[in-house]
């Protein structure tokens, strides 16, 4: 086995090379073959990531018996006094897991894109930017200090901007790209300031140093720093109130939605908080904020998803909701370091499984779109299960995983871990009640998730077959280049949970790294040893999930049959029975209305209040510019007047001090 450092730099470098090659050769020479550099880069990075994953546990161990991360310093960026920023990469358990997830899913999506983007005029551009994204994302994960992390953080934001606006000729795409950029940039301000605060307090930017000094910082500073860092995560991971950009980001190509806005980039915030767990673990107030925002976002996004008719938007809101889950987990790691480790592990576990099934769902949605002639409104098609068998089955796997279908599917296991962590948090500590409320919310959200997921599934694939005109006469299922990645992802979505979850493979691998001494030491050690499966909680969550699925089934599949039976039995009341609407209405009144009303309320609030607020923040500078414009009226004497006023004002003000 080679030394890890000898190939670690290649993981970002290969996609970068791919990007350069595609950009340089693509438009002129490669054209339709522009995907090759990108695929090679992604697959190469994936192989190396797997190597890293294998190598990491075999590394040296420290006194506590925990593996020491590989730190590979390649290049000193700049040194200004005691600030020393170098291009050091870091390989430890967290990094390795993230790397494998990013590069594996990235590779599959790149391959899928070959079919999906076929014939698009911007083909080379697409692959160049996707390569650039992989470079930035792997760099972000590998960074060993905050500034390098920040650099790549901006890099992924840029790629996201370019890819959302990929079909720039559509005004909606341009607007969405702009919105995404502005809104995430708001969060980035917080991140940058958080880094500044940490630097002024610890005089270092290295993860090891900063996190190792966490216990020396005062509680206020720690809380402020954590909240600022979390602001960056809120922006990037689309949490309330900065979540508004993500649904609009669906203007980009579907594989992009799958890769960036579901599986990888949006999880950067989760990664950041997990990476800084030693800080957060000692700032319970900050963690409470994280948990509350996470739980609230999860519920809010799920409620909004209930009424969406755009398939990709349903998935986008579900992404926001699932990210909320992850933050809920991260915020629950209070009280003792064992729980902090568990929390981070649960969040990352859910991140991994979510990456699989959400990428799968988006690619499935893309496949549907592909077949339907780019129509994505679920009201305009239906009953596609015969027509698109591959898409249907793989989508079903993804939906079941997202809904948390018990035992088999991965989402069940990872979601359960999150619930377990929150349960633990609600058993003691100052904010136990809040955590208990959050637990209940999370359970409710799980039911909603199951419902809207299967609503989308049933509306798309069940019922009688309906096709929009745009689909043409013979819509075809995914070609092998698209189908195979779907199947691989489906396998992952099914198996990842049961293989890694209950067996403790994942937990064992990752917790190992968390139990290192850098985690909160001033907190009491946990009384409990290894983490046992919380069977009652599992049962409840399974019941909730099944309930949601069942309700969706009844409402969107069973009802016609129900109505038919009733009509036959009550022969004379045919006319009445023809109006199956009554039943619909009844169901609506009983079940759907309350939720739908809530959902509509949330949506309205979201659209007008939060969205408006965020838009307002974006508009403020432009408005200020608008107000200041008349000063620039072209009259040289007016300019001189303003100068003179400036002098007089400054002079008077200095006198008055």
């Amino acid at each position, binding site marked *: 086995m080679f030394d890890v450092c000898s190939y670690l730099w290649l993981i970002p470098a290969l996609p970068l090379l791919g990007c350069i090659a595609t950009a340089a050769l693509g438009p002129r020479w490669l054209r339709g073959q522009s995907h090759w550099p990108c695929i090679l880069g992604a697959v190469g990075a994936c192989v190396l990531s797997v190597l890293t994953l294998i190598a990491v546990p075999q590394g040296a161990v420290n006194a506590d018996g925990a593996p020491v991360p590989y730190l590979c310093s390649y290049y000193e960026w700049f040194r200004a006094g005691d600030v020393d920023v170098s291009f050091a990469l870091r390989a430890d358990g967290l990094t390795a897991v993230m790397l494998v997830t990013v590069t594996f899913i990235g590779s599959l999506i790149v391959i899928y894109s070959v079919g999906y983007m076929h014939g698009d005029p911007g083909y080379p551009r697409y692959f160049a930017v996707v390569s650039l994204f992989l470079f930035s994302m792997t760099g972000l994960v590998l960074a060993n200090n905050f500034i390098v992390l920040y650099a790549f953080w901006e890099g992924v934001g840029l790629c996201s901007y370019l890819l959302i606006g990929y079909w720039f000729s559509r005004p909606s795409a341009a607007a969405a790209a702009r919105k995404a950029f502005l809104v995430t940039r708001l969060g980035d301000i917080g991140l940058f300031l958080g880094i500044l605060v940490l630097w002024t307090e610890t005089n270092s930017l290295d993860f090891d140093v900063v996190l190792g000094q966490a216990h020396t910082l005062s509680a206020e500073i720690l809380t402020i720093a954590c909240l600022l860092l979390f602001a960056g995560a809120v922006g990037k991971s689309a949490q309330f109130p900065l979540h508004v950009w993500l649904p609009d980001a669906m203007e980009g190509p579907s594989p992009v939605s799958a890769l960036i806005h579901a599986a990888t980039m949006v999880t950067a915030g989760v990664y950041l908080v997990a990476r800084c767990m030693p800080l957060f673990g000692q700032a319970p107030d900050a963690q409470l904020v994280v948990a509350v925002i996470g739980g609230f976002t999860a519920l809010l996004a799920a409620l909004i998803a209930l009424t969406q008719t755009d398939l990709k938007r349903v998935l986008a809101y579900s992404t926001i909701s699932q990210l909320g889950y992850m933050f809920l987990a991260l915020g629950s790691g209070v009280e003792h370091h064992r729980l902090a480790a568990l929390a981070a592990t649960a969040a990352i576990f859910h991140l991994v499984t979510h990456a699989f099934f959400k990428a799968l769902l988006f690619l499935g949605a893309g496949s549907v779109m592909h077949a339907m002639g780019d129509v994505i409104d679920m009201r305009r098609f239906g009953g596609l299960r015969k027509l698109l068998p591959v898409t249907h089955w793989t989508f079903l796997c993804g939906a079941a995983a997202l809904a948390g279908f018990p035992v088999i599917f991965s989402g069940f296991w990872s979601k359960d871990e999150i619930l377990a962590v929150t349960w633990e948090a609600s058993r003691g500590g100052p904010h136990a009640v809040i955590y208990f409320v959050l637990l209940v919310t999370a359970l409710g959200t799980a039911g909603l998730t199951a419902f809207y997921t299967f609503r989308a599934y049933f509306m798309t694939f069940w019922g009688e077959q309906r096709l929009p005109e745009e689909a043409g006469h013979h819509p075809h299922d995914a070609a092998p280049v698209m189908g195979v990645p779907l199947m691989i992802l489906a396998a992952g979505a099914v198996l990842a949970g049961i293989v890694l979850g209950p067996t403790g493979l994942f937990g064992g691998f990752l917790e190992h790294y968390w139990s290192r001494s850098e985690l909160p030491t001033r907190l009491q050690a946990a009384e409990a040893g290894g983490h046992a499966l919380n069977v009652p909680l599992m049962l409840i969550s399974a019941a909730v999930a099944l309930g949601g699925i069942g309700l969706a089934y009844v409402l969107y599949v069973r009802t016609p049959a129900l109505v038919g039976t009733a009509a036959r039995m009550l022969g004379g009341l045919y006319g009445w029975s023809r109006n199956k609407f009554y039943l619909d209405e009844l169901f609506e009144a009983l079940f759907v209305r309350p939720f739908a009303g809530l959902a509509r309320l949330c949506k309205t609030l979201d659209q007008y209040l939060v969205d408006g607020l965020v838009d307002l923040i974006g508009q403020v500078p432009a408005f200020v510019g608008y107000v200041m*414009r*008349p000063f*620039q*009226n*072209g*009259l040289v*004497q*007016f300019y001189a*007047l303003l100068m*003179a006023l400036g002098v007089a004002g400054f002079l008077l003000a200095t006198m008055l001090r």
Partner: protein
Amino acid sequence: MSPVNLESYLLVGAALFVLGMVGFLTRRNMILIFLSAEMMLQGVALNLVAFARYHGDLGGQVLTLFIVTVAACEAAVALALILMLYRRRKSLDVSLWQELREPNLEPVVDDEPLPAPPPPPELPHLPVAGPKPEEQPHETSHV
């Protein structure tokens, strides 16, 4: 020691400076604007010479001398520049030069009309032999 105190000279200097500044801001004739700037420099020169006297140091006079020199340089450039600008717009009004400004702003124009000019003096009745002097067209308010 002069019976007139430094304070008085400084005040006159400051007054000239401020008057020059106000002139710079209000007069619209390019030449007068430039002369107003020169008046500001006169105020500065007065300050410097007064301080030089007060401190018994020639440095202030030297600086004044150079200020006068530079003013002469600027006057040369100003003269050439203003002549060329006059050639284009046929006016010394600085407000005619406001094409460069923020887009979608209206130009600033004089709205208030000038009061009616005093009636032209009675022309002496000329004998028929001489050409009748042409009426001067009245300047209308512009830009």
